[in-house]
């Protein structure tokens, strides 16, 4: 193995090692919390991108699954005494099944129905959380018992669990990218009718991709509920959970492996810093405005994101498909 190939193969482990060892040196809750939140968003963004980036279907329902995960985690703990750390992966699988059901309804037709269904799904879950008072305690929310850990260590299990979720999301996304399944999804994004004509079972592929993509938001929601020891409809259905991953994926670069990671590690710290700078009475509102403006600017001027723009600049190609190195030149060279 040459040096370059070894670098190519092993470089993802270097930042991972740093992140694993970081809590040894850094004990400030602020930084660990920031990192943990960033891991969470990175994992959710990688998941979103399986559908939004690879298959080209935009979901506006991320927080619906996150909220479902939050409530599922809280209820399994309160009713059946199952710790969230144990139940979280199973909750993720449950959400994937729900996602498959939604996909079956929305994905037999084209993109418009999918947008509408994912958007209303959030409203439905939120309505259930508000109105099924016997189960969810309505708008008063559910309190969960604290973990029995010393105060200075209480953050660590969440830190590592979220990091593990992020690593898992990364490898799932990478495995999909390199597979026939992933190529099928990209074919769907590029030209759905042709993909179908070539024998890609487009409906099945899309449903499967959506089911996988919602897993991460759900697990993150469950973990976050335990981290806060509390869940109510406002916290569980925070608009930022839908908005931020979209902004992160677009800023970094949709349909790439590194883009969502880069986007999350850029946008989340900047977001936190912005909220810190703003007067607290309007911080949340102006944070919304800022992310909305970034979203618009990226959509208008850099829809391919940083990674794709960089790659196509290096390849001298154009557009976010610049990485297709065998693609014929779009225009004759002058």
């Amino acid at each position, binding site marked *: 193995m040459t040096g370059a190939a070894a670098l190519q193969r092993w470089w993802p482990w270097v930042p991972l090692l740093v992140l694993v060892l970081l809590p040894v040196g850094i004990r400030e809750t602020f930084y660990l919390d920031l990192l943990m939140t960033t891991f969470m968003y990175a994992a959710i963004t990688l998941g979103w991108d399986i559908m939004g980036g690879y298959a080209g279907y935009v979901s506006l329902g991320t927080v619906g699954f996150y909220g479902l995960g939050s409530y599922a985690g809280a209820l399994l703990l309160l009713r059946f005494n199952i710790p969230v750390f144990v139940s979280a992966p199973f909750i993720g699988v449950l959400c994937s099944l729900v996602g498959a059901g939604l996909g079956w309804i*929305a994905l037999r037709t084209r993109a418009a129905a999918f947008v509408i269904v994912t958007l209303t799904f959030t409203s439905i879950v939120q309505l259930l959380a508000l109105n099924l008072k016997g189960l969810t305690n309505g708008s008063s929310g559910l309190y969960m018992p604290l973990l029995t850990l010393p105060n200075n260590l209480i953050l660590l299990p969440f830190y590592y669990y979220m990091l593990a979720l992020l690593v898992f999301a990364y490898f799932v996304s990478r495995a999909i990218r390199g597979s026939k399944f992933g190529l099928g999804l990209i074919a769907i994004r590029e030209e759905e009718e042709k993909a179908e004509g070539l024998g890609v079972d487009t409906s099945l592929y899309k449903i499967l991709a959506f089911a996988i993509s919602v897993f991460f938001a759900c697990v993150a929601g469950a973990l976050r509920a335990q981290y806060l020891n509390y869940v109510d409809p406002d916290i569980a259905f925070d608009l930022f959970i839908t908005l931020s991953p979209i902004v992160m994926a677009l800023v970094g670069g949709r349909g790439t492996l590194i883009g969502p990671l880069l986007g999350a590690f850029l946008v989340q710290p900047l977001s936190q810093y912005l909220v810190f700078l703003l007067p607290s009475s309007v911080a949340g509102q102006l944070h919304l405005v800022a992310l909305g403006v970034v979203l618009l600017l990226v959509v208008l001027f850099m829809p391919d994101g940083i990674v794709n723009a960089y790659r196509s600049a290096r390849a001298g190609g154009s557009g976010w498909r610049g990485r297709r190195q065998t693609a014929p030149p779009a225009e004759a060279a002058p």
Partner: protein
Amino acid sequence: MNGQLLAQSLVLGILTGGLYGLTSVGLSLIFGIMRIINIAHAALIVLGSYLALALFRSFGLDPLLSILLLIPFFLLLGGAIQWGILDKLSSKDLTLTVLATFGVAIIVEGLQGAIWSSTYVSIRTPYSLSSVQVAGLYIPVVRVMAGLASFVLLAAVFVLLYRTNLGRAIRATTQNRTAAQLVGVHAGFVTTVAFAAGLAMAGAAGPLLGMLYSFYPATHWLLIGKLLAIVVLGGLGSLTGTFAAALVLGVAEQVAGVTLPLEWGPMLFYVLLFGTLIVRPQGFFGAVRRGSL
């Protein structure tokens, strides 16, 4: 349920249905001509409510009269959004236009919260609590006014669309953009007019909804879900279908409200939305058109 109650909810339902029609027909018009799902539609309706409230509080301007100011304002705003954002994307995929309107919705919501704070408000006019008595039924004045104003505005839009050359050009562009351009329709201009008209309908509906229900910046998420349900039920892009669906859902919501607890009302819309998508994705009322979803 006795007859009196049924008649009452029928009348109220038709009045509310008119308001749903005013809001959802604009959404459907925009989808029809531009193939864009305007996620920001309800956020702009709520903006209309806030502007009417501000005008009412500052100048004592009646919400009904503020509609006359809001229509030109929203026409200009619509022109600006179309020209400055959506027109730059129209050649690209649905993905980007959805994200753009989603971004607009987020910005509008955030600005409203920063300016007017995130607490519930409502527009309380001197006649807010009075009712009219018609054939033994008591109907709140504001609901009569909102319903009638909606029907008048809707009628104006339908006259524009079905009785003028501009309207013919809009409908032609909706049906087949290339063919319309071939016979001399300036599709770009027509599209901008249609989008602006759709937003003007949203802006005009703002004060009417604001008189009936209290609102805060995030209420638009609930509203956009309802409107999209209406539009899908009516057949995405079909204007008459959307109007019919709006009336049906307006009445259904009122009738259901008699027996069902109030907080479950929105569920009716979602159930019908999902039911429609499972059984008949092209909608129930509109003409079946290829690629309508």
